[in-house]
């Protein structure tokens, strides 16, 4: 998450207002003028980053202050579950703001409870037998709404992320970047493997890196030969309960999805 925060500020610069909900990213906030962000920052409630962003942008516009970035940095919980209404509403209204979701696939700040972004089979404290349901695809939902720019990204590919934030910065409307963010505590792996695990997600085809710009799909990192999904799964303790049959089935799904994505390249998403 720190990788995401740092990259975000590197690209956006000092004329930026940052919104964060109570979450892992709140640790950077600091207090008053001793803020770690060094730009104006506001802590929202868990579900309304996008609503505050809407009001801030409207306020800036009516005051003629058009050269300021408005960015929300929220976790998967505050985005795909409780945050979905505000996000969908703000995107529908077309406000100019950037929403970056750092997805560590559970409510990590409160101690690893499952979210809608938790993948199938993953252990969390509230899915101790492994989550039965599939991961929510919020990028697809927002693209269906006609968002001008949406992308997936990964904490393992910082320059790809930086390029996407730069694109988002220049969109005259809403943009959304969903960053896959491995969490060593919640996913059960040594912290030094963070980038490795992030890259495995991409290299197995589980987390393809792409962007959808005005409805047209572009894959930003093509993997020539997908690594077996098992490499990603076995690198983490949270998938310890997964059976070989489940792995096989999941592997097939991942490969099929990846092929479908490749086939859509350069075309309209839907």
């Amino acid at each position, binding site marked *: 998450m720190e990788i995401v925060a740092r990259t975000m500020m590197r690209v956006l610069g*000092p*004329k*930026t*207002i940052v919104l964060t909900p*109570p979450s892992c990213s*709140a640790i950077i*906030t*600091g*207090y*008053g*003028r*001793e*803020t*770690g*962000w*060094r*730009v*104006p*920052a*506001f*802590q*929202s*409630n868990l*579900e*309304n980053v*996008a*609503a*505050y*962003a*809407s*009001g*801030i*942008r*409207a*306020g*800036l*516009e*009516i*005051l003629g*202050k058009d050269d*300021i970035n408005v960015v929300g940095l929220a976790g998967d919980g505050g985005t795909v579950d409780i945050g979905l*209404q*505000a996000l*969908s*509403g703000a995107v*529908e*209204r077309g406000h100019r703001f950037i929403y970056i979701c750092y997805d560590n696939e559970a409510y990590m700040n409160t101690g690893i409870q499952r979210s809608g972004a938790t993948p199938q089979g993953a252990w969390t404290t509230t899915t101790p037998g492994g989550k039965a349901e599939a991961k929510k695809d919020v990028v697809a939902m927002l693209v269906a709404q006609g968002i001008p720019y949406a992308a997936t990204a990964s904490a393992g590919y910082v320059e790809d992320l930086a390029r996407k934030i730069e694109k988002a910065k220049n969109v005259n409307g809403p943009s959304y970047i969903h960053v896959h963010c491995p969490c060593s505590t919640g996913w059960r792996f040594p912290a030094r493997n963070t980038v490795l695990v992030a890259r495995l997600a991409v290299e197995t085809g589980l987390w393809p890196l792409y962007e959808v710009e005005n409805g047209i799909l572009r894959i930003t990192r093509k993997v020539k030969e997908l690594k077996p999904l098992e490499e990603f799964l076995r690198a983490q303790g949270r998938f310890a309960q997964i059976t070989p049959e489940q792995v096989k089935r999941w592997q097939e799904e991942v490969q099929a999805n990846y092929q479908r994505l490749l086939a859509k390249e350069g075309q309209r998403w839907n």
Partner: protein
Amino acid sequence: MPQLKALDGNRVVAEGARLARIQVAAAYPITPQTPIVEYISEFVRQGQIKAKYIAVESEHSALSAVIGASLVGARAFTATAGAGLALMHEITGVAAGNRLPIVMAVTNRALPSPWSLQVDHSDSMGERDQGWIQLYAENCQEALDLVLFGYRLAEDSRVRLPVMLCLDGFYVSHTTEVVSVPDEEEVDRFLPPYRLQNVYLDVDDPMSVNALTSPNIYTEIRYEHFQALKRSLTVMEEIGEEFYQHFGRRYAPVEKVELEGAETVFVTLGSMSGTVRHMVKEWRRKDVPVGLLKITSFRPFPKALVRDALKEAKQVIVIDRSAGLGSEGPLSLEVKAALYGLSPAPAVYSFIGGLGGRDFTLATLEKTLEKARELYAQGLVSSGSIWVDVKEAGD
């Protein structure tokens, strides 16, 4: 020149917002507030208000957006009612705790359940401890004036608190009355432009706002808030005088009606004050010594003023238009607390009625006087609230 017009409560609130030169409005439609958002949308489209209107997807987002706008320097406004206010509850504390001078109109509507479209004060009573200033309008003129008064009060550097302007759903929101619409230039002389104070989001002066706060300092921040609410009573009286100088109408935390020699004083909120005001005139014509203490500011509760106004009375009849479930009517609890320690103290009779839109009729009002006198004659005070308009079984 002020203009006399026939307008309803919702329309006058929109006029007030226009005259106050709001810059951002974010609101979600809910009965009986919907015409407010419609008028504001139209005013914005026609250029009568130079503002951004955000048609948010819920009330929770409405207040959130308005807070965002206020933090960057825009004068912001919203309106809601009933369940919409309840949905906003998570955020009302954010507006007040961050000391933002937002004005929100609430067309009072009963909270579910049971479901009702109509008036009672359960919605605004549910917000009474959130730290907002809560003002109740008796009629359309007050609803208009209190928007302007509200911004002036909210933005005063000694106050810096959001103002909830309550007007009874349908009884005021949808009733057309003759109102005097102030002249725009006069309003500009009364209400200067909004300027950022205290906490804000400004790239030239970065700060982190609304961060997690340790027990070391939480109490002190709350205490400052508490003191600001207390201070606002004095500021209200000052601004009330200024308002009078500009517009010829006087506002204060309370209004005293025929208290001279009143043995029985009614205490009310909102449009019911109009009903009582009428009955007081009738009673006085028959030499019945009654009076009315109308509460305009419910929060902060003007304890000292109420104590002073009621100390000579023998009986005080408080009428609550909300149920105060689990205890007594909230207004009556405030009045009793204000009178605490007085010796001798008036006997306070607490009545609950007019819930879920039930009309609080002149007949019901007569009943309260009858009942209070009956109990008083027996040397009794009611131990809780009397539900004065409950139907008997089989009715």
